[in-house]
């Protein structure tokens, strides 16, 4: 009987120690999270603003692009499962360009998130990959930090190159790619083409009334 009580005591002691450790470290993490979170949110917002501005360096605008957005409901062409944002780039009252959030669902691993700036003439001004999980050193050349590849889409549109040529050269298309990783650029090209199709069929709704 004493043995039973002795065992029970050890069990409770162990539980107590584990509990105390859990609580102490939960507290440490909580305090640290509270302290760092505002800094992180602020720097993420700044990074987003920098990213948006870098997309439209060549476009005249005087509005606060980061604040001037509207929501787009889930759409097959944009691949968004929740509503995504579209940013207006305006100069005075004139809408010069629009920045769309889009995603390529068929990358090598996970969705590839892109921002695409499109001008009045339905041309891509610039596009950037903002989030992806492609293989480091292989498919990650779609990231501007690693490779300037993504800039081949500058000034492209559905007519330039013609719709059939929106593919990598391997698939008889018009776009270069880096050998060894074709799934990734295929996904990006398809997503951009779909984004342009979306833009074309919703031009009025996006605010380009008098073009």
């Amino acid at each position, binding site marked *: 009987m004493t043995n039973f009580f002795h065992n029970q005591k050890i069990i409770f002691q162990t539980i107590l*120690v584990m509990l105390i450790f859990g609580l102490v470290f939960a507290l440490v*993490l909580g305090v*640290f999270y509270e*302290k760092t979170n505002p800094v992180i949110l602020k720097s993420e917002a700044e990074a987003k603003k920098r990213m948006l501005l870098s997309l439209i360096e060549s476009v005249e605008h005087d509005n606060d692009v980061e604040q001037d957005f509207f929501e787009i409901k889930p759409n097959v062409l944009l691949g968004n499962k929740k509503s995504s944002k579209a940013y207006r780039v305006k100069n005075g009252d004139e809408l010069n360009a629009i920045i769309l959030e889009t995603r390529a669902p068929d990358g090598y691993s996970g969705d590839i998130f892109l921002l695409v700036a499109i001008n009045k003439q339905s041309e891509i001004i610039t596009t950037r990959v903002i989030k992806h999980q492609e293989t*480091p050193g292989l498919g990650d050349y779609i990231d501007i*930090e690693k490779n300037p590849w993504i800039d081949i889409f500058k000034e492209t549109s559905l007519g330039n190159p013609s719709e059939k040529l929106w593919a990598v050269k391997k698939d008889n298309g018009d776009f270069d790619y880096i050998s060894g990783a074709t799934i990734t650029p295929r996904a990006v090209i398809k997503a951009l083409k779909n984004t342009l199709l979306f833009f074309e069929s919703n031009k009025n709704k996006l605010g380009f009334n008098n073009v």
Partner: protein
Amino acid sequence: MFKKAVIDGLWKQNPGVIQLLGLCPTLAVTTTVVNGLSLGLATVIVMIVANASISPIRRFIPDEIRVPIFILVIAASVTVIDLAIHAYAEPLYKALGIFIPLIVTNCIVLARVESFASKNPILPSFYDGLFMGIGLCFVLVLLGGMREFLGKGTLFSGLDLIFGQNYKDLSLEFFSNYEGFLLAVLPPGAFLGLALLIALTNWIDQKK
């Protein structure tokens, strides 16, 4: 004590080529020197913090449940480091960010805590974490270098992502129009490269 930590960490007990612990990130991430170095540095920080925080509380940890508590402490310190780098060293986070959470699952951290920090005072534990980390970092950089050179014909590409724009010129490109040797960049290349490094280590050890 200091000297022993240096010799053990860098050579005799090297985590990468002798203990062969923490192979998962070692093999997965070392496609370039810079990736290897990034993961290596992050691991050094985690190992120092984990060792130094387990050692002073080692008397309060019951033997029966030491492993869950070690994991708890390691996971908490990795999260703290992750948050701190994200908040106060944004450029570094962009380069290291994806690697830091990986370190929780790295066996070498748990192994050093279990076999060293839980039995030794704080200062030796600190040195142990530091030099074991540097030893692993060294192997990661070497392996990354081999794979990058063979696979892409470059060295140090992307160094500016960690240390800033000034270092962009340090990137070396050895061949113009190099087609690339894909095997070296893909996972099998990591196994072959590591095997070569282990063979080299054993060969040097035997010659002595």
